């Protein structure tokens, strides 16, 4: 095990010790034990930075299941490192924030931090695994730990609902992804990501290629809350705010982005990939920003804003993948979309994390997150207000913050969509910049709502749960301050992150680089007046301000669409429908009546055997081998046939028993005729005892015997005639097609010489095949014991109930 592996699983190891630390040192907030780990890990991953920037990828392999080609190989390249730094860096900040956010007395801190550590470890595993199966295992662990964290306050009904919803949707996608991984293995013969990427050119035309692409995209879209799978994310806001900040804005929801980016070199040669990723991304971007405006809960707005921003990144990744179709490297003309995606990924993690923490502070200090109750907090919470302004303005894409830069590059990427000369991009591509612009207007709008409806306007202390709201403690403010500082620093000096972005791009677009070449990323604030992006941004601001001013006049459109047609109600009704449907289906065939089940069994027997007889053309009738018929045999046959059929029409119990006895005695006569003396003897005796038993039970059995014939039922008659017919047909066919001679000649020859007996049947029973006899004796013994127990042992439940 290398240090890298240890780093990945160290959170999982620490998770084992958290409960005992919590118990041993109840006076210290458990979070403090946790804090050093992400800080250390952050430092450790920083040490990879110089190597990664020089284009080296660190790779460590740990054998796990070598016979199946599954090994725990960890690979640190640009993309993995960016995510690892985000996870550990924001992880450290979130832990610090949660120490002040979660109360030591009221909350079950040991559980919280165990779940959080599980999540950190799982997420590191996802982004650093080079083996798809290991990646999938960690992927599911993120779903699972996210489930636990969303349902952390499990006494709340909404928390449980949100946790279940996110679990169902992400695990659905996860399974689909597993299917894609297995199919991919069938195509390539390897689970290794880097080897799969190296084979990308060979698998494009494969039959399974489209299926793999769809399966894997389904996994990525559900995890990254893309339309229409975004519905779990707003409900996941029931989690504690540090969790929302960490999982549902900065890290887990980007796992899908990571997967798409990671597998872009494999799939981007297919036009469907570009259309699906870019198309779903842009729809999500628009729908998320449009829906965010109608919410009044701050976390609800931020959830939809996360959905929207994830859509933005996704659409950029989709369009940027087109760059792979141009082997010659044209000054980064098409790769700008990838640059924008990576840059915005980083920016979004910073400003969205700080915004969630800001909302958490507001919630913590005022007791509400509803913007209708908030207002006028600017003078009361000046630091929080500053954080909110910087975060929101960056999210809206205003200069001089980093969101402005990535928004400009986003427009550049979208404007170039039309110039991609294939997959219908030249005609339909015009939609991308238009939708992107409209979505940006709404983004601007909800960013302004967050700031101004919370912090300006009239202070309404009577609506707040907390009597005298005040500024948060310094410990709570440290993390968001660090994050907004990053927003500002990256905003002013964007090129300090460009070496990292270049390294990430090298992992997303590996085939574009000839040996020794590097991507050259320079991010500028100022594009000049002639650049369309600037005018688009100005248009966004103007349109956004107008919409904000006249909000009461047009927000009526949100109530136009009835709740019935929303995706959430589709999900709820779908889930309820599956349950009632399954319930109805089960109740329909599970009738609790033994007759129904017997009908199923017999009907299946008739159908399957009949169908086999017909399809295999198996019926045969061969008269060559039959014995001749004697008159007394015919008489016996008639007696038995009439006897067994007339049981059906017997009125009284006595007739029934006597008829059964008659059939049995007639059969023993058959045995005598067909030269089976032992059988005849046994049958005679046993039939006598059976009839005696039936008669013994005669008076004991129900006094109210139905003194009537069985009611005729057509279904029963059809089934029983079918059974009889099938048995006859199979008996005839079997008899007519004998494959080989009997082995009985051996018994005839050796019964006396080897076993010293003259009665062949008895010698077979006790000598040649005596095991049968042994266990038949056992059966009789058990039956006798059973009878004895039934009669003697009476721990009557009836008495207890009575």
């Amino acid at each position: 095990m290398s240090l890298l592996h240890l780093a990945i699983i160290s959170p999982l190891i620490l998770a084992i010790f958290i409960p005992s630390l919590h118990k041993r040192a109840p006076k210290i907030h458990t979070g403090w034990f946790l804090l050093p780990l992400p800080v250390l890990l952050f430092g450790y991953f920083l040490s990879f930075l110089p190597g990664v920037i020089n284009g080296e990828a660190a790779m460590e392999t740990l054998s796990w299941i070598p016979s199946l080609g599954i090994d725990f190989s960890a690979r640190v390249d640009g993309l993995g490192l960016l995510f690892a730094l985000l996870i550990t860096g924001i992880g450290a900040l979130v832990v610090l924030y949660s120490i002040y956010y979660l109360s030591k007395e009221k909350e079950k801190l040991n559980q919280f931090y165990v779940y959080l550590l599980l999540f950190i470890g799982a997420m590191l595993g996802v982004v650093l695994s080079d083996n798809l199966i290991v990646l999938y295992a960690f992927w599911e662990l993120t779903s699972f730990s996210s489930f636990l964290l969303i349902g952390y306050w499990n006494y709340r009904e909404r928390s449980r609902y949100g946790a279940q919803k996110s679990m169902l949707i992400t695990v659905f996608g996860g399974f689909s992804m597993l299917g894609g991984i297995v199919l991919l293995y069938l195509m390539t013969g390897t689970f290794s990501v880097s080897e799969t990427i190296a084979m990308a050119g060979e698998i494009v035309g494969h039959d399974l290629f489209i299926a793999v692409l769809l399966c894997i995209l389904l996994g990525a879209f559900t995890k990254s809350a893309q339309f229409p799978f975004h519905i779990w994310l707003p409900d996941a806001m029931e989690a504690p705010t540090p969790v929302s900040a960490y999982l549902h804005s900065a890290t887990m929801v980007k796992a899908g982005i990571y997967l798409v980016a990671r597998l872009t070199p494999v799939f981007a040669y297919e036009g469907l990939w570009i259309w699906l990723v870019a198309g779903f991304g842009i729809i999500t971007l628009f729908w998320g920003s449009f829906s965010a405006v109608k919410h009044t809960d701050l976390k609800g707005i931020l959830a939809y804003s996360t959905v929207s921003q994830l859509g933005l990144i996704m659409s950029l990744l989709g369009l940027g993948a087109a760059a792979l179709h141009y082997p010659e490297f044209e000054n980064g003309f098409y790769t700008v979309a990838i640059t924008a995606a990576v840059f915005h990924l980083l920016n979004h993690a910073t400003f969205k994390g700080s915004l969630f923490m800001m909302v958490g502070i507001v919630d913590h200090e005022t007791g509400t997150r509803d913007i209708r109750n908030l207002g006028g907090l600017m003078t009361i919470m000046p630091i929080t207000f500053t954080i909110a302004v910087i975060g929101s303005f960056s999210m809206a894409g205003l200069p001089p913050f980093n969101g402005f830069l990535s928004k400009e590059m986003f427009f550049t990427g979208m404007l170039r969509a039309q110039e991609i000369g294939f997959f219908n991009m030249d005609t339909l591509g015009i939609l991308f910049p238009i939708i992107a612009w409209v979505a940006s207007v709404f983004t601007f709008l909800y960013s302004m709502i967050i700031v101004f409806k919370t912090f300006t306007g009239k202070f309404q202390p009577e609506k707040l749960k907390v009597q005298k709201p005040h500024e948060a403690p310094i410990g709570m403010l440290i993390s968001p301050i660090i994050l907004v500082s990053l927003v500002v620093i990256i905003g002013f000096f964007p090129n300090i992150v460009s070496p990292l972005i270049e390294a990430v791009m090298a992992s997303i677009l590996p085939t574009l680089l000839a040996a020794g070449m590097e991507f050259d990323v320079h991010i500028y604030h100022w594009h000049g007046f002639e650049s369309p992006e600037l005018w688009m941004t100005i248009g966004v601001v103007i349109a956004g301000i107008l919409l904000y001013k006249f909000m009461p006049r047009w927000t009526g459109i949100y109530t136009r669409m009835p709740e019935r047609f929303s995706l959430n109600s589709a999900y709820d009704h779908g889930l309820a429908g599956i349950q009632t449907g399954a319930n109805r289906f089960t109740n329909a065939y599970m009738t609790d009546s033994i007759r129904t089940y017997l009908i199923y069994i017999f009907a299946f027997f008739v159908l399957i055997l009949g169908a086999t007889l017909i399809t295999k053309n198996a019926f045969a009738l061969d008269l060559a081998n039959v014995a001749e018929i004697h008159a007394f045999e015919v008489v016996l046959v008639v007696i038995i046939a009439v006897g067994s059929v007339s049981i059906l029409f017997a009125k009284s119990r006595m007739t029934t028993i006597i008829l059964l006895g008659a059939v049995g005695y007639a059969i023993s006569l058959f045995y005598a005729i067909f030269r089976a003396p032992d059988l005849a003897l046994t049958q005679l005796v046993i039939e006598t005892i059976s009839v005696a038993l039936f008669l013994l039970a005669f008076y004991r059995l129900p006094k109210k015997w139905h003194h009537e014939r069985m009611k005729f039922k057509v279904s029963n008659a059809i089934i029983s005639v079918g059974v009889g017919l099938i048995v006859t047909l199979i008996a005839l066919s079997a008899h007519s097609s004998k494959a080989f001679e009997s082995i009985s000649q051996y018994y005839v020859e050796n019964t006396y010489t080897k076993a010293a007996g003259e009665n062949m049947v008895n010698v077979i029973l006790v000598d040649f095949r005596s095991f049968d006899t042994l266990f038949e004796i056992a059966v009789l013994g058990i039956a006798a014991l059973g009878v004895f127990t039934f009669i003697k042992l009476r721990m009557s439940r009836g008495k207890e109930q009575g």
Partner: protein
Amino acid sequence: MEILMAILVGIIFMSATYLMLSKSLLRIIVGTGLLSHGVHLLLLTMGGLKTGAAPLLGQQAEAYSDPLPQALILTAIVISFGVTALFLVLAYRTYQELGTDNMELMRGKEGNE
């Protein structure tokens, strides 16, 4: 003769199935008894009904009827007897406990065990 026997076995199976589909527990037991008769006859028939001597070496015959199916049937008779006896006692106890032999009334209640 085998064809006649096959038809007879079919008739026995038909009656047995119809009895087993009835409501009364006693009729179901009679049905299973009849079913085992049918199976035994089928076994004998499938072994071949060519007339030979009984499988006793003392007969000094040219040919004997097949001893193996007879041994199998003998085992089967004893086992089905044991099962029928157990069934009967079970039916008797069931009636004592539940006061009915109507299978349609012996249903598990919803949410009861």
